[in-house]
């Protein structure tokens, strides 16, 4: 049966801006950035964790009709499309400080939970990202 989850997808409203954010600020690396002609196939992954990638897809025609694409864009902007990313770190406080310095829109400070310490942020488009330092 199944082995793993290899790629998951989120919608981004601009792929260049998404790269600036996910690679430039959060520290992801590019998995694939290829113009397939009909779409730009753009994936990123956490350095040292090559088995799982995130596809940064731009909603638009012909995959979605223009009216639907507009609806999706509007929903992304109000944080309603889901696609939450749950990331892990060795040091939540240090990572929070680094991201703050880089001007990331942090929505919640590092907080003690039953499962560890985590905090939250938004990407430039409205997608929700959480970063946790989990108990081992």
């Amino acid at each position, binding site marked *: 049966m199944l082995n793993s989850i290899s790629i998951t997808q989120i919608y981004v409203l601009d792929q260049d801006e998404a790269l600036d954010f996910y690679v430039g600020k959060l520290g992801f690396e590019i998995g694939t950035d290829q113009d397939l002609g009909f779409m730009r196939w753009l994936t990123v992954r956490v350095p040292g964790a090559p088995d799982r990638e995130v596809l940064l897809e731009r909603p638009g025609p012909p995959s979605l009709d223009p009216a639907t694409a*507009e609806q999706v864009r*509007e929903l992304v*902007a*109000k*944080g309603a499309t889901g696609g939450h990313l749950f990331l892990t770190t060795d040091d939540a406080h240090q990572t929070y400080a680094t991201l703050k310095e880089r001007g990331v829109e942090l929505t*919640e400070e590092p907080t003690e939970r*039953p*499962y560890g310490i985590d905090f939250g942020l*938004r990407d430039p488009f409205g997608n929700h990202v*959480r970063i946790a330092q989990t108990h081992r």
Partner: protein
Amino acid sequence: MTGVSKAVEDTNRRMLRARDAMDRAYAEPLDVPSLARVAHVSEAHFIRTFRATFGETPHRYLQRRRVERAMLMLRETDRSVTEICLAVGFTSLGTFSRTFRDVVGESPTQHRARGPLAIAPTCFTKAWVRPSSFGEAST
């Protein structure tokens, strides 16, 4: 993409920023002027637009956020009702009790008697335990 759609996206993103501010700073004395500043819109425009975007007024959203926090503290801690009322941003026990009952359908003490919650990632608990404005909680 049309100019109108782009404007809606920008507005939605700003309203989300204001809603995030309520999620983050619920315990502080948040008011409409400060939230409107977060969203970079006028106060009158803010209330109307927030409601159009999320289906309820910012005031109601903030009440539900505070009540959701209070529900959790009632069930997960043994702090007194008065302490919890102040910790989640209410300044009067009367307003807290009335709002809590209005939103949840039972008193804080009755709610406490339900006992501890199951553990899930906190951000999801926050979103899914939050008492509803949309009617289904009354069933």
